[in-house]
């Protein structure tokens, strides 16, 4: 039950550091609120923009909370005690991935149908979006986490991290707005899982010094 404990620990942390679950969902809605103001378009075209914006919102909410994955533990020294606990680093990294996905993406996924209602999205379209997000968002979380592990020690530059991460998100975006691509997204997520696992494990070793 070691692994499970580690996830619970991270979820507790996310929960303690303010009611994050609600925050993530409100963030989605607020980003969507911007659309009608920024695009002088007819309500019909909102529907067109909707799934694109959902993807942008999810990308942003991941980017904005990347610090929570490794950085905060690194800065206050908790990473050290996690690293010399009896867990293998790979497992630690997996647990971090999973808990971050749960605390960040699940609330958004739950909020999507509600948001869809506000934008008059049909139920089936909504379903497609949710399925795609479920398939693709884990990969985005993994990649984001890996890059933030890689840049742990670099000068405090959230933009810098962002600029490396965004290009890696483009494939997800491309397939994400395409309703038939859930399987591709799942594949992408799996590939990024492997890539991110190695990158993160390696980086954590480095920064433990």
């Amino acid at each position: 039950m070691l692994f499970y404990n580690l996830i619970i620990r991270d979820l507790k942390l996310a929960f303690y550091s303010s009611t994050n679950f609600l925050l993530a969902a409100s963030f989605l809605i607020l980003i969507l609120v911007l659309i009608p103001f920024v695009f002088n378009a007819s309500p019909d075209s909102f529907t067109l923009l909707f799934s694109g914006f959902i993807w942008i919102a999810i990308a942003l909410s991941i980017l904005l909370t990347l610090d929570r994955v490794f950085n905060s533990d690194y800065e206050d020294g908790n990473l050290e005690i996690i690293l010399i606990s009896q867990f293998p680093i790979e497992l630690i990294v997996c647990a971090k991935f999973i808990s971050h996905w749960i605390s960040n993406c699940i609330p958004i996924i739950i909020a999507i149908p509600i948001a869809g209602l506000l934008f008059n999205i049909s139920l089936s379209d909504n379903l497609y979006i949710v399925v795609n997000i479920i398939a693709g968002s884990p990969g985005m979380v993994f990649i984001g986490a890996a890059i933030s592990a890689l840049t742990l020690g670099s000068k405090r530059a959230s933009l810098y991290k962002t600029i490396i991460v965004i290009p890696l998100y483009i494939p997800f975006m491309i397939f994400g707005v395409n309703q038939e691509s859930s399987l591709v997204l799942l594949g992408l997520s799996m590939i990024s899982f492997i890539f991110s696992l190695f990158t993160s494990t390696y980086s954590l070793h480095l920064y433990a010094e």
Partner: protein
Amino acid sequence: MTNKLEINDLECIRNEKSIFQNLTFKVESSQTILITGKNGSGKTSLLRIIAGFIVNYKGEILFNSKKINDFNKLIADFKFVGQKNSLKENLTVQQNIELWQYLYQTTIDIDQITGPLNIKSFLDKDVSSLSDGQRKRVSLSRLTISQSKVWLLDEPLVYLDADKVKLLGSLIDKHNKDGGMTIYSSNTKNNLDYNKLINMDNYALL
């Protein structure tokens, strides 16, 4: 059962520069080792090498005659408390302890954690509103969670007042009596007993 930690001909390299070399010593169960030395002589580096954080060293470190590799299973036998206090500033002390309990897989009684360094009275305060010494005590209380045989303490006496230094002393004594060993670094004229003193200035390449 007694445990044994051997350091053989250790050389530490940081940032391509050799920090100290030819360091050899041995610690056995129930012993306390004090590490002193000038600033930058490598006290912290030594402790972090033993803990398994720094892997760029030459020489051997044996625990019960088994070689220590970085972050392997053995490592659970070590506990390191350093300058970074491993506390979440915005959580309460209690919440912090709870997070540790998950990490160390224990459901040890809270009194056993808060008792030794007398931190019970600020259990539900945010860490950010503790004084430096109180924070240090909370950080050191992590030692009481779960058994580990080797305690590595980097400047544990810093910020503690005389009473609290004594409390820490008895905590260490109890640990050593139960077969543990303790290695700590310090620069002050301190009040903790030790069995062996290692002056890093003799090995440092400053």
